[in-house]
């Protein structure tokens, strides 16, 4: 398959990239790792006249601490997330999630910025970022703003990003030391999108849930933040009855499509199963 023709641009700064996006308008697309966009271009589902490759922008790379937050450059690859000692220590759910994305070759190239900004409900990082209450740094011609992951996703491939804006970094508040975490993903095979997946962060205190955060992947047009389920769990010992109630609340906000991964009702149930498993595993990992 051969994509449509385009002009290739390789800016070396965010300013230059945003300038190009602004001046070239709707016919231009930013290119990160390209493992969503290039397949779309090969199928001619996308045919931008201009591609602005962000690979030459050094400022978009790297993982650093900034106070309590960890700031991850948008062009950081999944492979780099997996290899990062800082993330393994501070935000281990990102490593666990990255290892469940696609396959090794794709992870060498696929970026966290592309994963969160594309708006594909099948991508794994968006629900994890909602769970972590991350902020996205977006830069456009009128400067930088920060958008909460929880406010970012509006529909399939439809996000709060304005035309001409790019996500430059993801700012993740490091969860409390001793927190439990899990990302549970049901998929048919390596490289598949989730039939359903659940991200959980948990802090326990005296055997009870002190804090809990939940995100769900690929069971609606957008990733989901299961706020109601969280409220049900806080204060509980994660006893079976309370977990069941929370799972019911989480299932209630799903609206998956029926597709090759299964009928909608099945995918909703699997979201519940993934959440139950993630809660169990997060609890095992959480310090008392």
């Amino acid at each position, binding site marked *: 398959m*051969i*994509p449509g023709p385009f*002009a290739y641009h390789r800016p070396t700064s965010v300013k230059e990239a945003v300038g190009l996006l602004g001046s070239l308008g709707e016919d231009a697309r930013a290119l990160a790792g390209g*493992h969503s966009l*290039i397949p779309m271009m090969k199928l001619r589902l996308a045919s931008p006249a201009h591609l602005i490759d962000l*690979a030459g922008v050094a400022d978009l790379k790297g993982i650093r601490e900034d106070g309590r937050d960890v700031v991850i450059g948008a062009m950081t690859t999944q*492979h780099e997330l997996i290899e990062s000692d800082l993330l393994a220590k501070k935000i281990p759910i990102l490593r666990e999630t990255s290892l469940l994305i696609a396959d090794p070759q794709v992870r060498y190239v696929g970026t966290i910025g592309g994963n969160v900004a594309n708006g594909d409900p099948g991508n794994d990082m968006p629900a994890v970022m909602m769970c972590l209450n991350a902020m996205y740094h977006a830069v456009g011609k009128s400067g930088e703003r920060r958008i909460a992951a929880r406010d970012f996703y509006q529909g399939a491939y439809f996000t709060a990003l304005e035309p001409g804006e790019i996500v430059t970094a993801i700012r993740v508040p490091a969860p409390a030391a001793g927190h439990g975490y899990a990302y549970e993903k049901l998929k048919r095979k390596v*490289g598949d999108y989730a039939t359903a997946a659940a991200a959980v962060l948990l802090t326990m205190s005296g055997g009870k849930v002190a804090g809990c955060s939940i995100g769900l992947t690929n069971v609606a047009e957008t990733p989901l933040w299961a706020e109601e389920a969280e409220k049900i769990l806080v204060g509980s010992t994660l006893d079976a009855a309370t977990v069941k109630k929370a799972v019911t609340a989480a299932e209630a906000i799903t609206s998956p499509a029926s597709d090759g991964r299964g009928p909608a009702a099945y995918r909703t149930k699997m979201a519940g199963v993934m959440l139950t498993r993630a809660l169990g595993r997060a609890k095992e990992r959480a310090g008392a």
Partner: protein
Amino acid sequence: MAKSQVSMIVNGKKVEELVEPRTLLIHFLREQLHLTGPHIGCDTSHCGACTVDLDGKSVKSCTVFTVQANGADIRTIEGMAAADGTLHVLQDAFREMHGLQCGFCTPGMITRAYRLLEENKNPTEDEIRVGISGNLCRCTGYQNIVKAIQYAAAKISGVPFQEAAE
């Protein structure tokens, strides 16, 4: 569309060519450089038959534009054997352990296994299986592919190869 000049190292040799920006790396390698070792299998970034080593990463060359690889150092299956034709330890291992049946996936399997062993000299069977999970063998000959990679790893480390009990 105007062509762009690209310059890169392919299998140790400097290459300078003109390409359309939309030219995928797999098409460039196969049709312009006549390196037909990397195969087009699925053409949808699933099967891994087009895998090449690019700046120390295994990538699916069907999902990379040639212009993105400008300045890169690339190795394909053609660059694995020594100049005198001596097979790379992995190539030898695939032959010894019958790590191929039809052979279509083999160039991708070997280039991927090369990077895997560069990163992890002594992988467990599980690590090998995860490591090649982006490469499909439709003969389903995975057992011997894994064995070949274990054999190569043992050779590289200079330890005797011990076949796991079936």
